[in-house]
C-alpha cells in the first residue's frame, strides 16, 4: 500500500503565478482534505472533498480551489500567489468524512518568491 502520495515534493513559484498540487489518497479512501502548514505552525484546514464536491471549507480565500476526480485523487489550485502562501501543503485521506482515521502525505513544500 503506497499510502497517501503527493506531488511535487518541492516547487518554487513567483508572486502572481498559479500552482497546482496533486494528491492520491490511500487505497480504499474516498475523502480528501487539504491543509496548509506555515513554518512553525500547526496545519490549517483548507477544504475537504468527498464525492467530487467540496463539503467543508476553512478560512481561506477563493484563490484556493480544488477538485476531486472519480478515482478519488485530488488537486489543490492556488491563483495569484502571494509570498504568504509559502508553506507545506498537506493532503490527508480517510475512508469517511469524519476524519477519525486520517492518513497524511509527506506534503508539498511551496516557496513563493
Amino acid at each position, binding site marked *: 500500500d503506497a499510502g497517501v502520495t503527493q506531488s511535487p515534493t518541492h516547487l518554487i513559484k513567483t508572486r502572481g503565478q498559479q500552482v497546482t498540487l496533486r494528491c492520491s489518497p490511500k487505497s480504499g479512501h474516498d475523502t480528501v482534505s487539504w*491543509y496548509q502548514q506555515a513554518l512553525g505552525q500547526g496545519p490549517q484546514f483548507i477544504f475537504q472533498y468527498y464525492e467530487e464536491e467540496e463539503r467543508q471549507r476553512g478560512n481561506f480565500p477563493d484563490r484556493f480551489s480544488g477538485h476531486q476526480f472519480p478515482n478519488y485523487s485530488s488537486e489543490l489550485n492556488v491563483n495569484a500567489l502571494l509570498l504568504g502562501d509559502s508553506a507545506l501543503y498537506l493532503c490527508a485521506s480517510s475512508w469517511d468524512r*469524519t476524519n477519525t482515521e486520517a492518513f497524511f502525505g509527506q506534503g508539498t513544500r511551496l516557496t513563493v518568491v
Partner: protein
Amino acid sequence: AQSVTQPDIHITVSEGASLELRCNYSYGATPYLFWYVQSPGQGLQLLLKYLSGDTLVQGIKGFEAEFKRSQSSFNLRKPSVHWSDAAEYFCAVSGGSNYKLTFGKGTLLTVNP
C-alpha cells in the same frame, strides 16, 4: 469555534526519562481528540485518538493519553523516551458535524543522550 492550545513550544528530556506533553482544547460538545507526530520533512502520523469510552487511550510507540473533560485536556505521556521520539507533536480536535481537524501549534521534543 474549536481550538487547541499546546502551552509548551519546546521540551527537552533525557533519554529514558518520562514525558508529558500538554494539550487543552475548546469545543462545545464531546470532542474527538488526536495526537499526531511529525518528523522533519515528513507528513503527520497518528499516534492515538479519543472518540468515546475509556478516557485513557493507548497508542503506537508506547504513547498514551488521558481525556479529562473537567480540565478540557488531553495530555500525551510516555514512561521512557527514546532518542527516536525526537520530533514535533501536534494535538488536534474535531467532532460532531465539523469534520475538520483543528491543530495546535505543536510542541517540539528534543531528546538528550
